[in-house]
């Protein structure tokens, strides 16, 4: 098999088996992926930093580990990390000028765990600045393009990770999801992405955007690959005060379970006005496949869905405005030239270091938290958040899994929504409420609209990741949407 075929079609699982059988070494595999990145990233801009030397060292170590009989399922398999995870000794930019010179002095828990499992880091992927966006256009390092059509966006904010996996630059990648930033780019790039339950994956070393919403998770070609990665990513971490001390199951154990008797709910609010009718048809066809596998389907209601937009666009900016106050030019990162006094240093460092969307959200958040407005905005949004959570809990009294579209429309052309933040915000309508409620959610490829991939979203109850992965895996046994690859490169 040529290395190109190997990379374009291979899953983590297949590479893991190939390494175990000795068909190739991790060094050979890593070189092949580095070559692929080198020849394609000029067109995609999926990576901010390629860590070729480090990857070669890690690959050689992985091969030694295998030779000594210590290899696990992830050992020697390459991975790309969203450039929001701190990686010791490697630039960690978060897509921002303010961190362009920032070399992380410590390693995030997620990347550390994957490194411990023997994975080889190929580099750090592009994202919307500080993960604030749905298109990966707001990065200081320029936009990432979608390998399915380089004129359109790959989704965001984990768009670099999604474009890298979809184009065969990496077999799997990490992402983070505050309002849809794993699921939406997975949908728009024909990948399988999972946002775990809030507290399932440690946030330590993951640069904070909305701390009560952020979760890291896998972006992969298949549900089985996502399960293999989550096995190593998940778990209690005393360094993250919101980490949950709940045992991590083997997420691959239930993949083959039949779906007989599974109760699926379709929220009527997810199929109404605003949804592209071709996406509706693809999602309905996907749900019918699940019915053929033994699931029962009923309509449910999540009446407060629409309110997730105002609630999210208060809570996330409010948390962002406090989180991003640490970027002040004092201890790390960018500092403006020749400050005249301390205030001048703070205000110019931040004005020059942050991009437009980040400034907008900091200002919205600052306003929502300012004296006299707290009750009308922040407190009100947190009350709506309770109502949104209650809607889901009422639904989960009747069904096991909720299914619907991941996005209302397929990927749009670069620049089409750049000057209209509100139009961009409305694209998150089906994903935001899952973060507000802290539930696990997945996106699974379910077809194409005008040659562009779209996703089926699956939402589970708290800590039901294994069940979501089971449903997605069973779906992928009877469909081949996830196996389709772009003609790119």
């Amino acid at each position, binding site marked *: 098999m040529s290395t190109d075929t190997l990379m374009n079609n291979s899953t983590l699982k297949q590479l893991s088996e190939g390494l175990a059988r000795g068909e190739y070494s991790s060094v050979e595999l890593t070189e092949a992926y580095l070559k692929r990145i080198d020849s394609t990233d000029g067109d995609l801009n999926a990576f901010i930093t390629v860590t070729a030397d480090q990857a070669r060292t890690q690959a050689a170590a992985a091969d030694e580990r295998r030779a000594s009989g210590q290899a696990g399922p992830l050992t020697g398999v390459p991975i790309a990390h969203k450039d929001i995870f701190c990686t010791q000794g490697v630039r960690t930019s978060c897509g921002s000028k303010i961190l362009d010179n*920032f070399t992380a*002095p410590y390693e995030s828990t997620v990347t550390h765990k994957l490194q411990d499992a023997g994975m080889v880091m190929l580099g750090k992927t592009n994202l919307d600045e500080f993960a604030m966006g749905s298109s990966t256009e707001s990065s200081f390092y320029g936009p990432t393009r979608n390998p399915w059509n380089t004129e359109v966006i790959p989704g965001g904010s984990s768009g670099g990770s999604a474009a890298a996996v979809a184009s065969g630059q990496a077999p799997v990648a990490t992402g983070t999801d505050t309002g849809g930033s794993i699921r939406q780019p997975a949908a728009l790039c024909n990948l399988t992405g999972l946002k775990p*339950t*809030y*507290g399932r994956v440690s946030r330590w070393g993951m640069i904070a955007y909305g701390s*009560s919403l952020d979760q890291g998770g896998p972006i992969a070609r298949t549900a089985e690959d996502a399960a293999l990665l989550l096995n190593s990513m998940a778990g209690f971490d005393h360094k993250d*005060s*919101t980490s*949950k001390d709940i045992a991590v199951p083997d997420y691959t154990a239930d993949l083959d379970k039949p779906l007989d008797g599974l109760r699926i709910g379709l929220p009527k609010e997810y199929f109404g006005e605003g949804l592209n009718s071709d996406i509706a048809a693809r999602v309905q066809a996907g749900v019918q496949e699940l019915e053929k596998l033994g699931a029962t389907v009923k309509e449910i209601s999540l009446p407060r869905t629409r*309110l997730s*937009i*105002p*609630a999210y*666009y*208060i809570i996330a900016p409010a948390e962002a*405005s406090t989180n991003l*106050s640490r970027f*002040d030019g*004092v*201890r*790390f*990162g960018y*500092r403006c030239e020749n400050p*005249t*006094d*301390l205030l*001048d*240093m*703070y*205000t110019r460092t*931040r*004005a020059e270091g*942050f991009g437009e969307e980040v*400034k*907008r959200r*900091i*200002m*919205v958040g*600052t*306003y929502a938290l*300012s004296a006299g407005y707290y009750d*009308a*905005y922040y407190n*009100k*949004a*947190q*009350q*709506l*958040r*309770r*109502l949104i*959570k209650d809607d889901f809990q009422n639904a989960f009294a009747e069904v096991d899994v909720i299914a619907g579209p991941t996005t209302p429309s397929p990927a749009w052309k670069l620049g089409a929504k750049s000057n209209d*933040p*509100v139009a961009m*915000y409305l694209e998150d309508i089906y994903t935001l409420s899952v973060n*507000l*409620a*802290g*539930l696990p959610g997945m996106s699974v490829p379910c077809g194409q609209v005008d040659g562009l991939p779209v996703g089926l979203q699956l939402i589970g109850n*708290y800590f039901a990741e294994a069940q979501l992965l089971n449903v997605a895996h069973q779906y992928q046994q009877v469909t081949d949407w996830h196996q389709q690859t772009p003609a790119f490169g």
Partner: protein
Amino acid sequence: MSLDRSEVENIAMLARLKIEEQDVPHYVDALSSILDLVDEMQAIDTQGVTPLANPLDSVQRLRADEVTEDNQREHFQSIAPATDAGLYLVPKVIE
């Protein structure tokens, strides 16, 4: 809900963001349109609803007050814009 110029200038100062004079109208428009988007929540009756700060209603975990980290001052200061004698340097605050 729309903001006026002085409100936007005040928010920018609270957020420690320098906004150029000519960019103020742009921020007035952008922030006003975002606030219009979120204003529909004001119509919802939330009386008596307890705000949800953590999706799992978790409370802060406590631990014993013990030293668990080594001092890594030199390591952390190696990436600082300006340091001297173990201190972070900023422009003069007091004459």
